[in-house]
């Protein structure tokens, strides 16, 4: 049996995501024409042979429950083990700071009885809002080989991310310094994927709880860094944390790069998403749809360029969509034009409307809006 257990953290609000999180958690934001953000981490875990995963829930998690369901999409609907959703207060007590947890260690303390029952010897902790296709089996192998206490995945390719963590790596990739949310980034960008043993995790959870410490990165990595052998695992592929609308927009547009598209969709490590049961997309005569990622169930009769199109979108005759992202069932009616727009689910851009966002400030339109 695979010796690795998955824990995924979800967070309620990232204020920087504005309209995109009005009706959902960051983990269930649609991404890349077909996916929800959490699909990436669940698929990474599935592809590494991980069979048991706990998702630590936070705040208003209905949209996430609807999306993940019983975990069947990732083969995690199991009689024994499989996917477990862990609501706050699983241990039937309040977090000290109030209604909801504020840090990973506090969240883990809230689900301690679940952690106690984990049947694997090792645990991988990861965030639900990371776009990545990573071979976690290889990270696990590196962790075992190095005999480190904690292995942290990090990347030399820095992308603008709010409130990021950085490492300086020494000999054998030992983490010699941890910086939390520095003004000026330096070193390796921490992707907040950690592997450690179940025993150490439980010890840390208990110790942090006793000392009223709540954060993994500042209280454990930074605060107790000198007590443990902490190593970095350097990942050179595409990795994107999504914490603002601008980051969301830029990372979505990156998907149009054939190299990125291939990396995220490699057949060896597929990213699985809930079936949409849509018919194939129809592209009409005298329309044009170029440099665009288009999901199933769409009808394209107008012009679409440099865009990401989710299932069931309609672009009518004479309509022009440029540099935009249209969520499920959005429609752009005749002669309407949009550019640098993120139109949420069911948004209708009525006949003749013109909407322009800016490359530096894409216009996000709330779910169900009619314009």
């Amino acid at each position, binding site marked *: 049996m695979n010796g690795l257990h998955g824990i995924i953290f979800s967070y309620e609000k990232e204020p920087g995501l504005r309209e995109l999180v009005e009706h959902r958690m960051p983990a269930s934001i649609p991404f890349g024409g077909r996916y929800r953000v959490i699909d990436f981490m669940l698929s990474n875990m599935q592809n590494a042979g991980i069979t048991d995963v706990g998702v630590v829930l936070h705040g208003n998690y209905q949209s996430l429950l609807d999306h993940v369901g019983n975990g069947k999409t990732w083969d995690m609907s199991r009689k024994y083990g499989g996917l477990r959703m862990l609501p706050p207060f699983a241990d039937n007590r309040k977090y000290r700071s109030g209604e909801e947890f504020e840090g990973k260690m506090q969240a883990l303390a809230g689900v301690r009885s679940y952690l106690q029952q984990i049947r694997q010897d090792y645990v991988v902790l990861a965030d639900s809002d990371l776009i990545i296709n990573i071979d976690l089996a290889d990270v696990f192998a590196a962790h075992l080989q190095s005999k480190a206490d904690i292995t942290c995945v990090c990347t030399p390719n820095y992308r603008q991310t709010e409130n990021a963590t950085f490492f300086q790596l020494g000999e054998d990739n030992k983490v010699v310094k941890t910086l939390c949310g520095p003004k000026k980034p330096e070193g390796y960008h921490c992707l907040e994927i950690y592997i450690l043993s179940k025993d150490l995790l439980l010890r840390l959870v208990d110790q942090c709880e006793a000392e009223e410490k709540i954060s993994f990165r500042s209280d454990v990595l930074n605060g107790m860094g000198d007590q443990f052998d902490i190593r970095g695992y350097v990942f050179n592929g595409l990795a994107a944390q999504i914490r603002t609308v601008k980051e969301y927009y830029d990372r979505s547009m990156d998907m149009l790069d054939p190299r990125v598209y291939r990396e995220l969709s490699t057949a060896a490590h*597929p990213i699985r998403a809930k079936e949409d049961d849509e*018919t*194939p997309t129809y592209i009409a005569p005298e329309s044009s749809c170029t440099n665009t990622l*288009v999901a199933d169930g769409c009808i394209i009769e107008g012009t679409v360029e440099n865009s*990401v199109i989710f299932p069931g979108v309609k672009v009518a005759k004479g309509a022009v969509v440029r540099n935009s992202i249209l969520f499920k069932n959005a429609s752009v009616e005749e002669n309407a034009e949009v550019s640098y727009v993120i139109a949420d689910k069911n948004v209708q851009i009525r006949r003749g409307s013109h909407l322009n966002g800016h490359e530096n400030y894409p216009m996000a339109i709330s779910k169900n809006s009619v314009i």
Partner: protein
Amino acid sequence: MKKDCIAMLLAGGQGSRLYVLTENMAKPAVPFGGKFRIIDFPLSNCTNAGIDTVGVLTQYRPLELNSYIGSGQPWDLDRDDGGVHILPPYQSATGASWYKGTANAIYQNIGFVDMYDPEYVVVLSGDHIYKMDYADMVAAHKKAGAACTIAVMEVPWSEASRFGIMSVDGEDNITEFAEKPKEPKSNLASMGIYVFTWSKMRECLIRDENDPNSENDFGKNIIPMMLNAGEKMIAYRFAGYWKDVGTLDSLWDANMDMLATGSGLDLFERSWPIYGRSTSAPPAMLGKNSSVEHSVVTRGCVVDGKAENSVLSENSAIEDGATVEYSILMPGAVVKKGATVSYAIIGEDTVIGENAVIGCRPDGSEGWGVTVVGPETDVPGDYKLAANHMLNKNLKEVAR
């Protein structure tokens, strides 16, 4: 366990008239319409009509079909009570035999049907493309108190002699049945979709099995036998889109019908969805210099060349400078740089080499027809395959 109605789906045929496409798989497993397989249509019709128990009778090359159906989950047919069951021929105490005919296939599974003790059994074929509410047909059957109800549709009189033709009285009671009559008396063609009252059907199957001269076929034996016995048999008229895709031409036609708004085959209509097994491919990627018109694309397609009037299936690709027109690329088919595919069906996972030319536009010549390349074929660069020709995976050109 008792069910009012269950369905038996005949999926064992070889589909020999699909030639290279069914060398390695049964006809119902043949891909259709970009992301479906033919069997998705009857299975989705069952689940949409509320029929939750389906026996799938398999015989010829069942591997692909069995693995595709799996637990039945994509069609919501993974049930503890009922659900989809694969029914291959089996060995019994008195010996073993293949399914000798459509009626014999169900005869051999009387035990399966009895397990659910249904009042009615719907018999379906695995090679038709259509959306139909079997519940409505069963209701008509019940209302008439019939022993057998046969779905029929009006066909042009000129084509009537290609079908099994029903003659009916003023109340749509079937009075006569003729298989491919030279001089048809009616233009109501049987669609090969039947509802039987199980107790009557069970008797007939046993009687038919005891007749050594019978071919054990529904159309040839069971229906005439019931008519002669004076059983109440009614015609159920169907007016929607329906196509038997048992030949290369009809398979090509039905795929093209997806593109034609007037054809009646509307897969966008959401009240009667067609379900299929999901693959994990990403959305289609239409490149900077691509040109796609009047075509369907689906997940995993990567288009950098040109597609017109075509059906591009999952994970198919058209490279730079390649052109595909009036053609069907089945899942995983790749058309390399500079190649041209015209009026053709390209099988699953086949690669058309650079600058190859497959098929051509109708040129008015007598020998013109749709060109076909079988699955898993590696067509070398610069290869030319003439219209109406077929190529199999050993690169042997086969006559149609």
